[in-house]
């Protein structure tokens, strides 16, 4: 049965310097949770606190209803896949996979059977007698995951496991890890700074900044309803456009253009519009602004337009298909009013 995790007011401090501030989070049994955020946001530290590799300075870590703060790493029922793979270079693949079970003094036959199962799942049977240095990056990654599987843990932790792989292999391994989650059904926590990985793999995304959770929720919830400017800017690729808005009694205007929004916009300081939600076709929404086209990228399936408003604010637009857009021309950008995001002066969503 899958395992639940609760973080209650979790704090991490190095001396006087607090780096994780009162984190509260519930992870449901079998959930694939992704911690995402920029470098230094505390996502890896939080993961290592759950793993037992970093002492917890305050609050409670609860796994399946049991407080785990002082339980050693090996007894938390956790397996972790490291960014560097952390394979033992002097052992072959079989010995790497078997190390944990041998340490636990499991019977030889059981070790063999569990290693074989993990090797079958990850299709690394032909590699069992090889040393890590004889493996490619992708194969090492599989062995690292295999080492976690062999232990049959309650929880899998992944610390940026794909960051050392090339782009093609990343996509491939991303799919395999997602499949692995479906097959095994374990609770998994995955740390990445890549929001595409987060969006494609997660049941729940936790966006962190400076040791604080900015927002936690399902990927599309974060995409559609970001709580603040940081989350709005972090989730989604290309990044959301932010335009300075001027609010008056009746509505808002951007770059001198009054927007006819069907809802109250009182207190708006910034308007957010995702590049893929902006069009250049009249009748597809309300007018956003007149923009001058600075650069056009034809990607085949999409056309990306880099433009600026009359008052010099950048606006990026992603159009479906191949569109003829003239460089240097001034065009009118439109947007579905339901897809407009409004933020107050503090950066919080309205």
């Amino acid at each position: 049965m899958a395992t639940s995790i609760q973080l209650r007011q979790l704090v991490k401090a190095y001396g006087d310097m607090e780096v994780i501030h009162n984190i509260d989070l519930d992870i449901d049994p079998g959930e694939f949770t992704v911690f995402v955020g920029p470098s230094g946001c505390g996502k890896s530290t939080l993961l290592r606190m759950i793993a037992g590799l970093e002492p917890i300075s305050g609050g409670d870590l609860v796994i399946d209803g049991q407080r785990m703060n002082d339980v050693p790493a090996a007894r938390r029922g956790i397996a972790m896949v490291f960014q560097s793979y952390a394979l033992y270079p002097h052992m072959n693949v079989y010995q790497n996979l078997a190390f944990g079970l041998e340490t636990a003094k499991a019977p030889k036959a059981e070790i063999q059977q569990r290693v074989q199962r993990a090797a079958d799942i990850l299709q690394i049977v032909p590699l069992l007698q090889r040393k890590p240095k004889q493996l490619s990056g992708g194969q090492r990654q599989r062995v690292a995951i295999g080492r976690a599987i062999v232990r049959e843990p309650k929880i899998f932790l992944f610390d940026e496991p794909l960051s050392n792989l090339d782009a093609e292999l990343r996509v491939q391994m991303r799919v395999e890890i997602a499949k692995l989650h479906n097959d095994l059904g374990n609770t998994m926590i995955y740390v990445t700074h890549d929001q595409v990985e987060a969006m494609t793999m997660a049941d729940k995304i936790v966006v962190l900044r400076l040791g604080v959770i900015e927002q936690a929720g399902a990927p599309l919830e974060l995409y559609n309803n970001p709580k603040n400017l940081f989350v709005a800017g972090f989730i989604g690729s290309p990044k959301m456009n932010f335009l300075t808005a001027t609010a008056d009694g009746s509505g808002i205007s951007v770059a001198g253009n009054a927007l006819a929004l069907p809802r109250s916009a009182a207190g708006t300081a910034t308007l957010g519009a995702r590049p893929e939600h902006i069009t250049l076709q009249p009748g597809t929404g309300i007018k956003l602004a007149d923009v001058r086209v600075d650069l056009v990228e034809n990607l085949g399936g999409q056309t990306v337009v880099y433009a600026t408003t009359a008052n010099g604010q950048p606006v990026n637009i992603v159009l479906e298909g191949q569109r003829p857009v003239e460089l240097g021309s001034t065009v009118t950008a439109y947007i579905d009013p339901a897809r407009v995001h409004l933020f107050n002066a503090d950066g919080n969503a309205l």
Partner: protein
Amino acid sequence: MTARSLESGAPARERAASPSLWSRIWQNHAPGYLFLLPWLIGFFGLTIGPIVTSFYLSFTDFDLLTSPDWVGANNYVRMFTADPKFWASMRVTVIFVIFSVPLKLAFALAVALLLNRGMRGLPLYRALFYLPSLLGASVAIAILWRQIFARDGLVNDFLSVFGIAGPSWISNPQYSLWTIIILAVWQFGSPMIIFLAGLRQIPQDMYEAASLDGAGKWRQFIKITLPLLTPVVFFNAIIQTIEAFKSFTPAFIISGGTGNPINSTLFYTLYLYQEAFGFFRMGYASALAWVLLALVGMFTAFSFLTSKYWVHYDE
């Protein structure tokens, strides 16, 4: 004027004036050789020359005063068949190597492990522990050692606190060699620094992965630290063994150059020194030196041959 016109159309006078290949090479490389000259003189005059000469002398009878007499392999035959002192010195040296090297390496590794725990003031401790290696082979320390282990020395003063009357460690053949072994172990600084550097190279996440796998500190040491440190152990073992075979000063000073009591500190190099500069048997001393070289060479070759079975290189 192009090179072509120079070669084809120039008068013979001009061609004769153009530098030859050898003189061009000389002009290009002369400054380099000039700078190398001091080293070349040292290498050929002080290293290669004496090596070749000693090999020749090892087949002669030579007392420094008269010219060497060719005696063939007599020196070597005598050494192995009719010289009990050769075997005594070999025995002392081998015992010294067998005990001092592993003890020194174990001690160096233990201290390196302690220092690797990220303690405060690490550079200070590192320097302090390294100090004996700088001083250890000196005459002054050997004299100090003699005082410490003498009948009225520091060790016996300490033992007398517990009512134990210790012997004169240096003049007792049962213990004399051990005082020199302790002196050698005390000079653990050099291998310790190398061990410390090796320990720093082991990625922390190996230990983290092992601790998640349930491995305690001891199992981590046996299964992770030691295997990953084997290249450093191998290097230290070779260097320290060669050093131990060559050890001379402590035995010379502590025994007053005699190797006594009852040849118990007659190191191989000390015996060689006695033969050469005590009895002026340069031919025989040269033969002794070549046997030592062969012995060290065989040990090193054997170590390299067996290293593939126990030394783990990451890449």
